[in-house]
């Protein structure tokens, strides 16, 4: 007969444990009781939900089908308030009684509520459950003043989440520095600076004495008399184990439920796991040891008593992009016989500290860059002798060494702490499912989909194990801001950064250079569809004055001439302007336009006004022109109206930025007179249809464009072009031409993601293009509203500005 196993607690620890039990040859009828109404979700990603980086569905770990498929009864929304050990029953608040043969307690922990007056007011929250996150989301928004009590891991993640929702956030921390249980004073200061640069106010040594306001909280009072306004308060002052029902039932309980190395409690049929437990004086608040416990418990309870739990090395990770923190072991460097190795890089905000004893690692602190954490964690866990590595302890493992590094890890090593994915599971997935990219690995195993900090290690495992390993291009943009462009897009989007300087301040060296600033300018523009903070100082000169700088510091002026079509009146105006401004050279360009060369910067706005034509964007990484042949308008062989189509295509895409310059052409028949087959986007007319081709080149190299799709109508051809155009804008690396772009991604993928994508995906691309287009305008209109001295020099008489000089004298 089957034994009845009751599990109290439907959180990460309890359900992970059940997953492990399912792997054994068990004989249980399993019932899980959860007091939340949700299926098991990833509690450590709640902060990502609050930050808007993930949706509620994204953090579900076991959906309802999982319970069904495994024959597990889920009793959700039931709170167990009594365990009767004599009769082996448990009782819920709602009044139902359930008998068990074996009992697993996984009740977790609760937020600690400090005794502060007014803590029961409306608007004062804890941050523990999905419902808490939903309540906070509902109340947060622009202009809301939020105060977070507690500058520990949870408090800081909540603070960042609220801030990303638009709140003004202040963190009040009792200790002398942030995360004082995980960081030394210097580390705390580095973290404080990082958070302040993100826009979060931090006060340490802050003792909260009261919450003020009537029914709803309106402010916070500190013991030095300071009053802070607050419409929203989150209390994150620590957690305490939920061990109350176990104590009342008569189990041995100290702070947590006492368990031995087999996770057995003082009653032979009762086990406990997770944050409600206490093992040799240790309490638990992090996920990694719970996974260890779960594996041991699963063995014990199924009669395979053997593996033992030996405690854990405390390790903490703060998941705030750009303010990463990792801390493990004992970091106190004042102890007898320990050595301290430190690195401080104030301009990048990076602080690293290793504590060694006899060449073995005892503690580690990383702030600002925690990408190497697994290496230190392994040294710590395995007690590795570091004599050999002493000269480069703090430098990241060489990329060639990474594979070996990963190879040395035991299969049981948890690679992804967020989702509890072991090295063994990853290797099995790579082998059995033929994975060869990180994206596939993420999809199949969920590894690296949480905080993402294990992505590097996953990458190494792929490299070492997969025969078809395909390296994803992840070159960092620049040493000023050492992230790949994909990461930067993600950072800009998720951290809601709208200006280049913000990105540089928080994720870079605060200054930038001619390599990263134009790239970041592009990225903020395209991520926010033109609704970004334009910073001209981050743009190349061409984009500051909308003209192309020449070797002698003069500029060239090329008005837009859609499709290469002009009129006598327009030509007359161009001629007049060329004469009026003594333009030294007038030249027909290779793209059917007219170039006025050798223009002084100060003359630019006047010329634009006299021309009365639009900017041809011939100076920027953007839409250059659409070259056309005569087509069916006059040509004897023309089958399609290439001129009208080209003019319309140019009108739809002009004024927008692209990763690199984008040149287009439309031809009315396959004779290809306007060279559409070597353009970034080309339309080739034929009897009854259009071929849309992309990725052509006729520069340093020549590349024939690939066919994107063949369509019947002109409108379909224009739409297909627009789909590819926006897709390139969103996925191209800055300074990557379409011909490199299509080769990097492969035409199959490009087609699948654009013209053959689902309707909503296509509509999304077109909508985003339209939004950008709505915000874009002819750059030359800036002539009517120039910024101070944007074009003309400041002219000052030899003795300075007289009036100003007199004011100055008054101050001397």
């Amino acid at each position, binding site marked *: 007969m089957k034994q009845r196993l009751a599990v109290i607690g439907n959180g990460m620890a309890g359900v992970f444990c059940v997953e492990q039990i399912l792997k054994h040859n068990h004989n249980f009828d399993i019932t899980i009781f959860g007091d939340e109404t949700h299926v098991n979700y990833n509690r450590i990603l709640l902060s990502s939900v609050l930050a808007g980086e993930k949706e509620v569905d994204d953090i579900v770990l076991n959906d309802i089908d999982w319970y069904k498929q495994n024959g597990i009864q889920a009793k959700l929304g039931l709170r167990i308030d009594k365990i009767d050990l004599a009769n082996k029953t448990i009782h819920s608040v709602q009044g139902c009684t359930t008998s068990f043969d074996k009992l697993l307690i996984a009740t977790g922990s609760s937020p600690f509520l400090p005794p502060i007056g007014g803590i029961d007011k409306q608007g004062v929250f804890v941050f523990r459950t999905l419902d808490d996150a939903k309540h906070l989301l509902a109340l947060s928004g622009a202009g809301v003043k939020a105060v977070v009590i507690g500058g520990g891991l949870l408090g800081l993640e909540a603070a960042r989440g609220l801030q990303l929702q638009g709140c003004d956030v202040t963190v009040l921390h009792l200790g002398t520095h942030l995360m004082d249980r995980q960081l030394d004073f210097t580390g705390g200061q580095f973290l404080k600076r990082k958070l302040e640069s993100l826009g979060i106010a931090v006060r340490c040594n802050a003792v909260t004495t009261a919450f003020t306001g009537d029914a709803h909280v309106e402010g916070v009072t500190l013991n030095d008399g300071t009053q802070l306004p607050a419409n929203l308060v989150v209390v994150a002052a620590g957690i305490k184990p939920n061990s109350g029902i176990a104590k009342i039932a008569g189990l041995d309980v100290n702070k947590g439920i006492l368990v031995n190395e087999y996770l057995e409690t003082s009653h032979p049929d009762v086990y406990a796991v997770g944050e409600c437990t206490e093992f040799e004086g240790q309490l638990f608040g992090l996920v990694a040891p719970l996974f260890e416990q779960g594996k041991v418990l699963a063995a014990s309870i199924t009669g395979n008593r053997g593996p033992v739990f030996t405690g854990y090395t405390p390790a903490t990770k703060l998941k705030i992009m750009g303010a990463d923190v990792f801390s493990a072991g004992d970091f106190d460097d004042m102890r007898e016989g320990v050595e301290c190795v430190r690195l401080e890089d104030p301009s990048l905000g990076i602080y690293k500290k290793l504590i060694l004893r006899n060449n073995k690692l005892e503690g580690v602190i990383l702030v600002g860059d925690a990408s190497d954490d697994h290496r230190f964690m392994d040294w710590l866990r395995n007690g590795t002798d570091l004599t050999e590595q002493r000269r480069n302890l703090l430098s990241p493992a060489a990329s060639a060494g990474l594979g070996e590094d990963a190879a040395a890890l035991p299969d049981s090593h948890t690679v992804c702490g967020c989702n509890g994915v072991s090295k063994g599971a990853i290797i099995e997935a790579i082998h059995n499912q033929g994975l060869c990219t990180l994206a596939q690995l993420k999809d199949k195993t969920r590894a690296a989909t949480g905080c993402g900090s294990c992505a590097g290690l996953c990458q190494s495992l792929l490299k070492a194990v997969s025969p078809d390993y395909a390296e994803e291009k992840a070159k960092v943009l620049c040493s000023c801001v050492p992230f790949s462009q994909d990461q930067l897009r993600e950072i800009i989007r998720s951290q809601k950064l709208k200006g280049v300087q913000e990105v540089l301040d928080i994720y870079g060296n605060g200054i930038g250079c001619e390599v990263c600033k134009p790239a970041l300018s592009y990225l903020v523009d395209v991520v926010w569809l033109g609704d970004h903070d334009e910073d001209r100082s981050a743009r190349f000169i061409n984009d*500051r004055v909308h003209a192309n700088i020449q070797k002698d*510091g003069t500029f060239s002026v090329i008005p837009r001439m859609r499709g290469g079509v002009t009129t006598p009146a327009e030509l007359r105006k161009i001629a007049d302007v060329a004469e009026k401004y003594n333009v030294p050279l007038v030249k027909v360009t290779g793209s059917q336009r007219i170039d006025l060369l050798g223009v002084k910067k100060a003359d630019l706005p006047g010329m634009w006004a006299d021309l009365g034509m639009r900017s041809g964007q011939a100076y920027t990484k953007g839409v250059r022109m659409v070259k056309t042949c005569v087509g069916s308008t006059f040509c004897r062989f023309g089958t399609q109206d290439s001129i009208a189509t080209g003019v319309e295509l140019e009108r739809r895409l002009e004024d927008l930025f692209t990763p690199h310059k984008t040149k287009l052409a439309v031809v009315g028949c396959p004779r290809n007179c306007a060279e559409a087959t070597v353009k970034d986007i080309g339309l080739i007319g034929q009897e009854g249809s259009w071929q849309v081709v992309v990725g052509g080149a006729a520069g340093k190299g020549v590349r024939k464009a690939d066919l994107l799709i063949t369509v019947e109508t002109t409108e379909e051809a224009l739409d297909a072009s627009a789909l590819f155009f926006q897709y390139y804008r969103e996925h191209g690396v800055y300074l990557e031409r379409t011909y490199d772009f299509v080769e990097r991604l492969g035409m199959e993928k490009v087609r699948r993601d654009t013209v053959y994508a689902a309707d909503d995906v296509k509509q999304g691309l077109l909508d985003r293009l339209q939004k950008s287009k709505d915000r874009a305008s002819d750059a030359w209109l800036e002539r009517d509203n120039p910024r*101070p*001295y944007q074009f003309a020099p*400041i002219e000052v008489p*030899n003795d300075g500005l007289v009036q100003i000089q007199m004011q100055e004298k008054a*101050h001397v």
Partner: protein
Amino acid sequence: MSSSPWIAITVIENLPLKEGRTLHWKGLDIALFNLGTRVVAVENKCPHMDGPLVDGIVSTFEGRITVTCPLHTRRICLESGQTLKPATDGPCVRTFPAKIVDGLVLLQENTTLDVI
């Protein structure tokens, strides 16, 4: 050696952050940069090929503040006038002492390099 007088040239609002502005004064062509807490002024002419430094992007090289010439990406130190990247023993650009007083940008002719 008596130093030259400080000359008022403009109000700080006319110099957008980190974006160069050209100054014509005493027949000189000068590039002004507002770095937020201070203003720097250098001759508007790259030692390499005479590129207009005023049109460059403010950058950094080994901890020093530089401007990158728009023509061939030479990085010129805004403090010393030296070309830092690529490293060279070639000529420096002339620099001018500058300061902000009560919202006014003041400039001094650099006496040590004064050739006029």
